[in-house]
């Protein structure tokens, strides 16, 4: 009879259950694996709270690594991002721009806050206080970073903007000079 397992054969319902369980398990493992891709290290935001990647909470994250003492690349990138975000209109709320300071000693959360809000009131600045943690975060994104050879010198840092999708996956990067509409296009893609 159809559907009746022969001796030694696994019942169809059980097989289905096993397959579903396996699928869910694999999906969970994949999700966990991704989650571990971005280090869970202590981070402070310019709003005075701690920051975790899960705070992006279903939104797109646009992550930039920079510092207040950067004369040109950082303000230009943040200004360009602000323009792009405003162009999104009502969809703006779906996106969160995060600037991670590569100069945590001088960029305190309060100073970072005033700096990033100059470009857009919803931008947040993040300080990773521990230098080793900052290196871990940069590596997780594939973001170039090198501390200056002398105190107060130029900091080598990534010029790209990194995209995190609403499920928390690192989806790619945008490189300067940013073309108007590039962010909207990336979010659609």
């Amino acid at each position, binding site marked *: 009879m159809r559907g009746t397992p022969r001796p030694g054969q696994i019942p169809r319902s059980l097989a289905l259950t096993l397959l579903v369980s396996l699928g869910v398990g694999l999906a969970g493992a994949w999700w966990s694996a991704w989650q571990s891709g971005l280090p869970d290290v202590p981070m402070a935001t310019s709003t005075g709270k701690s920051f975790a990647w899960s705070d992006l909470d279903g939104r797109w994250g646009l992550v930039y690594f920079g510092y207040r*003492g950067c004369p040109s690349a950082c303000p*230009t990138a943040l200004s360009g991002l602000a323009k792009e975000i405003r162009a999104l209109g009502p969809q703006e709320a779906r996106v969160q721009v995060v600037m991670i300071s590569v100069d945590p000693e001088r960029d305190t959360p309060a100073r970072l806050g*005033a700096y990033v809000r100059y470009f857009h009131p919803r931008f947040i600045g993040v300080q990773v206080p521990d230098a080793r943690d900052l290196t871990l975060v940069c590596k997780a994104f594939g973001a170039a970073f090198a501390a200056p050879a002398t105190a107060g010198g130029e900091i080598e840092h990534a010029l790209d903007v990194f995209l995190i999708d609403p499920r928390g996956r690192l989806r790619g990067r945008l490189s300067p000079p940013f073309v108007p509409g590039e962010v909207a296009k990336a979010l659609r893609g």
Partner: protein
Amino acid sequence: MSYRIASWFVVACAAVTCGPVAASARAGGLRATVEMVPAVSLWIAEAPPGTDVLGVYGRLEGRGQSDALQAAALDGVREVRLHVLTRGPSGGGLMQPLARLAVPARGAVDLKPEGVHLMLIGLGRTFAAGQTLKMRLTFARAGVVVVKVPVRRRD
């Protein structure tokens, strides 16, 4: 007579349209010589809160003689440097100082964030959109030239 008027007219127009100009004219015909400094069109990006460095961008355009920008100065600023944004050893962006910036005789060089630009270091004054400041530029051939530079928001 008409040639003389014409030659003086050329010099006068150059002086009016090119801003900083060192002009000389040899009376007596069309052999008038005009030694002009590059046309300068620069702007300073408004300072975000808490910053101590700023970029200056725009264009330098040759007016018939090649030249090179060697130095710049601005009151209330500790130092003005010529910089270029390059890729550092780690693959990130890194500023490198430049000794001079060549300006072709017939052509322009753009100063922009992702390339060559001037950097103001040590801001002892405010930089707010709407201001116009005087900057001293030192060219290899044209000498010191004072230009007006507006402060603007980046967007």
